[in-house]
């Protein structure tokens, strides 16, 4: 299957079209179509991941590292003396995004099953949902910055409507806040993209343009450096892989490696890195920019907050790795202390906030903020363990937070109330549900045997071992574990243990135990969390080589 990735990305889109085309009378056909579409995508993803062999060696900024690559010219405009403007449809997978792809496939399918009983405006809902899924999958596999940015922006719209229309009481506020936050972020990313675009050229295409063979890349790069190939012939490109390679920068350009250009005194590369960092940190969400997350989660309907927490936060993390860290390794090392600090701060700040929350979903949202702090710290460490820990954390947190939100959804669907103190002693009323809640909570607070522990352990040993961030940071961050245990067990104790008590009497008969659909969603997640907790090399073998070359790529720029 040559165009495997394109099929994966565009099958949900086709399904969306089908959903839009089927008339309103076949009401319940929509959700069946959605589930089928996403199910097929997941099968393809699993097939793709199985074909992906982890042993491929290759520098992170060379195309040798990529697999399942599809590269065709999308459109190009010649602007006379300003050189050629070319954007190509360039998708591929390497260690960094194979995990994300798998996670996206799984969580999207579960989200689709979870939205089984969405009642009003089904056609719009499932259409938007499929649109969202295809843009997410696209975003993960896109390797052309323009394409990546297109999908990144494309995600915003359906999510805005999904929260805005099917959300809770304060849905408009939450949807607008989410939209504006991410928009501001994406503007920063856009600026850097443009800056990068006009300082990076595609050696292969320039070679063809200037009459050399495609293979003489080094010679062409040399020629461009000493200016023999004029700017008219240079073919600019959005290709992320080329952007990562330092000698693909046009001499004297804005973001050139030697960093002559200055903006308010700082080298341009640093400012570009900061802009990307802030842009994706908003999406991640890192602490100062995280306030949209609790609102968005609380107001979003359950399946949407599953997808939001499950995958959308990972797009921020993945974006950080793919754009900020790969393209600006020198400035990444320069700011590593800052990122590490913010990561550690996020862990503790998120945990403390979760401790004080009254609303179960808000609590889970803040716990996501805390867990995403691990990703930041892992990346700041820039060691192999740290980075693979960060990727593993993104993967495992995706699964765990999906399960957590499903659990919150189970209660909300029954009683439309999420306040923790309105319940007591649910264990005796809903024993099976309590088992799943306990598993989710313990997995989330990092009990060994679940995937969360492996990720956190790797992040800790990675960041302690790294010379990029001081040793006290991981040690202070470990207090996050205790706080995590604190708020989870306290919630468990308040809501589930003790005598059965419910604030509103007529909830009693509605608080039934899990039904088969909920099992269908929760059991696979539990199995996955356990499997990836006991046997992590399933994912680690895939990402090992890419992470190693990524770490070497970063390491070169360390003093």
């Amino acid at each position, binding site marked *: 299957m040559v165009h495997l990735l394109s099929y994966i990305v565009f099958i949900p889109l086709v399904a969306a079209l089908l959903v839009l085309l089927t008339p309103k009378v076949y009401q319940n056909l929509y959700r069946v179509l959605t589930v089928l579409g996403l199910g097929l995508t997941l099968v393809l993803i699993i097939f793709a991941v199985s074909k992906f062999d982890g042993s491929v060696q290759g520098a992170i900024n060379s195309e040798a590292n990529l697999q399942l690559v599809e590269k065709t010219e999308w459109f190009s405009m010649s602007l006379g003396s300003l050189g050629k403007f070319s954007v190509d449809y360039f998708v591929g997978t390497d260690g960094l995004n194979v995990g994300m792809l798998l996670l996206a496939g799984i969580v999207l399918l579960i989200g689709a099953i979870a939205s089984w009983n969405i009642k009003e405006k089904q056609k719009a809902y499932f259409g938007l949902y499929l649109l969202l899924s295809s843009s997410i999958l696209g975003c993960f596999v896109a390797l052309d910055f323009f394409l990546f940015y297109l999908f990144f922006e494309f995600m915003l719209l359906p999510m805005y409507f999904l929260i805005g229309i099917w959300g809770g009481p304060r849905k408009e506020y939450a949807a607008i*806040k989410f939209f504006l936050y991410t928009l501001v972020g994406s503007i920063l990313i856009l600026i850097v993209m443009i800056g990068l675009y006009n300082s990076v050229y595609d050696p292969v295409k320039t070679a063809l343009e200037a009459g050399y063979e495609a293979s003489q890349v080094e010679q062409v790069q040399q020629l461009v450096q000493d200016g023999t190939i004029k700017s008219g012939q240079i073919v600019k490109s959005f290709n992320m892989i080329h952007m990562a390679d330092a000698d693909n920068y046009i001499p004297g350009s804005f973001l050139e490696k030697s960093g002559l250009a200055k903006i308010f005194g700082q080298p341009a590369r640093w400012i570009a890195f900061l802009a990307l960092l802030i842009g994706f940190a908003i999406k991640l969400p890192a602490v*100062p920019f995280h*306030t949209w997350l609790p609102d968005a989660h609380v107001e979003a309907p359950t399946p949407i907050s599953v997808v939001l927490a499950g995958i959308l936060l990972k797009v921020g993390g993945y974006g950080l790795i793919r754009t900020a860290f790969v393209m600006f390794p020198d400035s990444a090392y320069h700011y590593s202390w800052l990122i590490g600090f913010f990561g550690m701060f996020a862990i503790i*700040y998120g945990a*403390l*906030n979760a*401790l*004080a*929350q009254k609303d179960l979903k808000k609590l889970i949202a803040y716990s996501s903020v805390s867990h995403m702090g691990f990703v930041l710290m892992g990346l700041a460490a820039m*060691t*192999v*363990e740290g980075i*693979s820990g960060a990727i593993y954390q993104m993967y495992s947190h995706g699964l765990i937070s999906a399960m957590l939100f499903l659990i919150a959804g189970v209660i909300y669907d029954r009683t439309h109330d999420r306040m923790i103190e309105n319940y007591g*002693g649910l*264990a*005796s009323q809903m024993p099976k549900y309590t088992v799943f809640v306990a598993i989710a909570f*313990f997995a989330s607070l990092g*009990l*060994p*045997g679940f995937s969360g*522990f492996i990720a956190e*352990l*790797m992040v*800790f*040993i990675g960041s*302690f*071992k790294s010379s990029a961030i001081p040793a006290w940071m*991981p*040690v202070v961050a*470990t*207090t996050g*574990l*205790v*706080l995590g*245990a*604190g708020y989870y*067990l*306290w919630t468990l*104790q308040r809501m*589930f*243990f*003790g*005598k059965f008590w419910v604030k509103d009497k007529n909830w009693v008969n509605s608080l039934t135990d899990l039904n088969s659909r909920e099992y269908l969603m929760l059991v696979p997640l539990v199995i996955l969390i356990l499997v990836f907790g006991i*046997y*992590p*090399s399933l994912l*680690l*073998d895939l990402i*090992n080589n890419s*992470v*190693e070359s990524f*770490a070497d790529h970063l390491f070169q720029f360390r003093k």
Partner: protein
Amino acid sequence: MIDLQDIILPKSDPIIYWIIALLAIPFFSFLSTQKFRSKAPHWSTFLLGLNTLIAIYLTTRYWNSDFITVRGHWFKLGETQITYSFLVDRLTLIMSVIVNFISLLVHLFSQEYMRKDKAKPRYFAFLGLFTFSMMGIVLFNDLLFIFIFWELVGLSSYLLIGFWFEKKSASLAANKAFIMNRLGDLGFITGLMILYTQFHSFDLEAIKSLMIYSEIEGGNWVAQFTNNGHEIINTLDGRWLSAAGIALFCGAVGKSAQFPLQVWLPDAMEGPTPVSALIHAATMVAAGVYMLARIFVILDAQALEVVAIVGAITAFMAAIAALSQFDIKKVLAYSTISQLGYMVMAMGIGAYTSGLFHLVTHAFFKAGLFLSAGIIIHQLHKLESKEVMFNAQDMRVMGGLRKHMPKTFFCFLMCALALAGLPGFSGFLSKDAILLDLAVWADIKGGGFYIPEVLAFATVLFTGFYTIRMILLVFFGNFRLPIIMQKNELSGRLKEGNWIMLVPVAILALLSLSPVFGFTLNAEHTWFVEAMPTPIYLVPISYAAKSLVDVTPETFEALHGLVNAVSIGLAIVGIVIAYLAYKPNAKLEQEFVERREPRGFFGQVSFYHWYQDAFYRKAILKFVMLKAQALSWFDKKVIDGIIDGLAKFNVVFAHLIKWFDRYFVDGLVHLTVFTSGRIGQLTRSIQSGNVQAYILASFVFLILLMLYLVF
């Protein structure tokens, strides 16, 4: 230069099947017990019996063989290979026998104890889970895996303490236990981080062999080794070496309830008594000491001092606290903390063998004490009814039970005397071994290091005191419950526990006699001490502590007699004082019965366990909760406030722009529209409709154009 890869090469050994069996059976019991609804207890007991047999078989077979390790690869992290490895040596064998045997006895005891409780399958499943995780700690020789099972043990203790989750206090105690353990685990993880950074592996064997090669150069701790080819040199500040030791010890502090993290153990008594017997007496709390034994060789002088001091303090504080408790289980809990303090202190001073010896003996007699207390509580529960409501664990309702339950009394007495450390009982042998080593250690160290010795000997006195006080209050004098309840027929109904509860207690009582370990008063001659020589330190010389091994036997001989005399004397003195204070209708005994809590500062301090619990609740917990509230307020008000403020500012700014726009820009636009309109009118005006006007206009324009161009 040794290569890390050679050390962590996968090794396999036929024993692996036995090890897997030892692990799998309890886990299988955890999984399958729920299915056997009513017959669950029998099934899990059968499984545990099987496991104990395997353990005993292994011990007999491999007791004299050298240690066996089995290793395999778990997953690869960049260059470094994360492995799992098992180690079977004498210590592992002994521990596996103890864990399985006591777990078996507790299973047997629980048959009866939990007979009426409908959630029995869940109880036995959790017991199975606990035994599985305990075996995990014992068998694995890999710090990471020890940590993993460390937390699983914490989880199972959480589940068991909070077994009766309807009781709010039980779930609160479970929370406290888990969080306290977690606090300790922070240290454990930090220790892991340090050792991994230095040696790129968690495997204890690798760490030990690499530790030998690491040196201290000018205050820096340098480890040199090659990892499949390319050479690695890791340098850390020398202080991190002791920090690693102390950090790992924190893990033990959390688990074995040492100062300052020992507040959770007394509250853990909320759980069923057999659970306390198994977990909070014999096995789990001992896990900390076992882990210390495992990492004993990589602790440097600094760390060992810390361990010794903490052990001594804990022993002393807990003993004091045990003096004035009402609840029988609380007394036993504090006594456990105190005895654990002894073991940790032993490890701290380098008395590896005597520490372990005390661990083994303590496991037996403390489990016995707990189970016998369980029988008493169980029988008292039988007396409860609607109108007769009382706390079955409170010693004030007991009294004079030796008439009603002679057999329990006899076993209780045997274990209590072992606890007090009277000669003829196993407790005496192990405690004296520790005290002897302590004395030698104090002499060598000199200076301030006499304080632990003083604390230790004081603890011997207090131990004797509270043991006998407990015996007197429970078994002597008259049965106080009917007096309080004014129902005399109650004393008639109090009968002896049935045989299934008495057999385990009896076995444990027998095991707490000294002949089990050797017909001698001197610990040196017991088979246990010979079997377990103290290993030498592998830490770089400049940081290593002076090991007791290379102290000449003569110094031991010199102090031996003196130490024995003093310890026996103090124990007897403690007993006599207790007898005088608490013999039936003695002064203190009367006070004890009426009042809610002991009078006097000393009594208060002891009862409320040095107010440590109160201090924690008020200071730390309140502080954390306040901080959390403040932060969430800050988060809501300030950050959201800023953002909303920004939004409001935008709205205001927008209005400003609108006003500016309407008057200036709009004005401008109107202006341009107006002018373009006027120009339009102008250019249109020449369209007067008269062709001659057209011609004239065109011609004039032409001429104008030409004139402009020419001049």
